[in-house]
């Protein structure tokens, strides 16, 4: 049988799913064990026990200095920044995308501007962002917003242009004004696409969040990672990385579920 036609059955599919993860874990713990036998205090590749201890300490023990539970505090502040950043970006991206995709008068100045802006690496102009937005929460949120809004806006602009022109003409012959047209035809078409675009930029949003927290901060997941990196505490960093991955995956899954629930027709229509 040709390779292209061979499909794994249920059981072997499960094994194939687990295999790469198991291989990675196996390789990690082998490497960790080798280094720890040479030097029991090695910090680069901590053992499972060391990481469990670190998790206990960070998540379930009160911090001596601040009296809080560090992991949860870090998570709460990071998620808050991320949520605000994503919320603002989604709203802005949607408005800009519709304006430049549907209204030619707005599209003429906006479209090239968005293209150029989306190419500017926000991390390279950080000092300017500091002066404009300060060092507090605002600058962290703004870094996310500046980083992902142009990408969202460009994607939505493209989707708005893909709406069949017949639909727009038909709505107009039925008496729709520009405003009604946007509200009743364009917006419903673009909302599911917005959720999908958000899922795609989640990775960048996390990247900008962690970069912002590494630069000037007093809490947050990125702050903690960059702080303990100073004494190579990989036993804290690795669980944090796993936790961030899990959170990001949950958010992705949540957005996917939301798309299905709120816009069941969208995926159905695509077959």
């Amino acid at each position, binding site marked *: 049988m040709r390779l292209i036609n061979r499909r794994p059955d249920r059981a072997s599919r499960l094994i194939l799913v687990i295999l790469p993860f198991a291989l990675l874990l196996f390789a990690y713990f082998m490497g960790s064990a*080798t280094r720890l036998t040479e030097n029991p205090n090695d910090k680069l590749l901590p053992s499972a026990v060391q990481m469990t201890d670190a998790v206990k300490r960070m998540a379930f023990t009160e911090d001596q200095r601040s009296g809080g539970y560090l992991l949860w505090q870090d998570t709460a502040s990071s998620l808050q920044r991320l949520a605000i950043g994503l919320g603002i970006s989604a709203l802005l991206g949607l408005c800009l995308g519709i304006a430049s995709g549907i209204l030619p008068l707005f599209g003429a100045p906006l479209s090239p501007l968005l293209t150029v802006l989306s190419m500017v690496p926000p991390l390279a102009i950080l*000092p300017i962002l500091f002066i404009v937005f300060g060092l507090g929460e605002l600058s962290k949120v703004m870094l996310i917003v500046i980083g992902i809004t142009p990408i969202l806006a460009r994607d939505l602009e493209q989707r708005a242009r893909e709406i069949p022109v017949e639909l727009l003409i038909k709505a107009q012959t039925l008496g729709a004004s520009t405003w009604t047209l946007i509200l009743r035809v364009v917006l419903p078409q673009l909302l599911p696409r917005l959720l999908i675009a958000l899922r795609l930029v989640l990775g960048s949003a996390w990247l900008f969040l962690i970069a912002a927290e590494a630069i*000037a901060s007093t809490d947050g997941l990125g702050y903690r990672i960059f702080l303990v990196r100073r004494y190579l505490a990989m036993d804290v960093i690795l669980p944090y990385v796993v936790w961030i991955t899990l959170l990001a995956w949950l958010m992705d899954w949540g957005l996917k579920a939301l798309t299905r629930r709120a816009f069941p027709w969208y995926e159905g229509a695509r077959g």
Partner: protein
Amino acid sequence: MQNNIKKPRLFAMLAAGLVAALSLSAHAAPKEHFNVCWTIYAGWMPWEYAGTQGIVDKWAKKYGITINVTQINDYVESINQYTAGQFDGCSMTNMDALTIPAAGGVDSTALIVSDFSNGNDGIVIKGEGKKVSDLKGMKVNLVELSVSHYLLARALDSVDLTEKDLKVVNTSDADISAAFNTDDSKAVTTWNPMLSDIKAKPGVTEVFDSSKIPGEIMDMMVVNTQTLKDNPALGKALTGAWFEVVALMNSKSAASTAALEHMAKASGTDLAGFQSQLDTTKLFATPKEALDFATSAQLPQTMRKVAEFSFQHGLLGEGAKDTSAIGMSFANGVTSGDKNNLKLRFDPSYVQMAAEGKL
């Protein structure tokens, strides 16, 4: 079926490959090729000169070895790489030597204590005529858990304040100058070259600097103890090269100006700027000076203070019960902390060889 037979072998191969890739362990057998790293800082620029002008090569050749001198752009990363075993030696401060490699179980030796900060680290507050006590209730931008943090703690000691009386905001050293330009930031603690930039702004006061705690923030070349023990040639070559460059810098000749200009350029400033950074760095001009400092009674005392600070901030590792968790040894058989866990050794014997002209 054939596939099923192949699978285990493939699995074993993949696993072996990954294990090989992940186990970066360096074995301490006698060897001839060595790697050391350094980062840009006024007191370490002689390494740049020694590395690029063939002085390290010359000394290495004399002892029948080769030494590769690599510049790393990120200071903490360079120490982490050394701790992970990628380098045999690296330039770092006394506090970082204790809290990163030594606390990470990598037995390390301070081969050359080459200078101490004598104003190179400072605390700056916005506004004229400020004092250390004005820090109370303020937010201070600094690189947390670094020598800046230590300097701040020592400054607060001097006016009976503690860290609880203010709030530290972890700020990356690359962005601290830009951060101080914003209204949010009222006070910073940092080091040169950022410090001179920040001090030069109008309407600011430097309330404390490292010249008030002389000899407590040291810059050193740290090498792996086992590697040094197996290969004394490495210690001899590095020490010889170092003092040759330092002697050249202090020779007050056309050659010394050329060398200083070279280092200034390599550190991204001009001769005047580099000279002003050197003025606040007490660079030991002769092996004798370095030896006197390394054998002084002050050194163990300073390191105890540093260990105390590190322990209070959880830098000695979670297993550490008290400040003595990590043992340190000094000249003349003096030790501090756990004698069964000596991980940081100040060994002036190579500097002594240099002082006696035996290299």
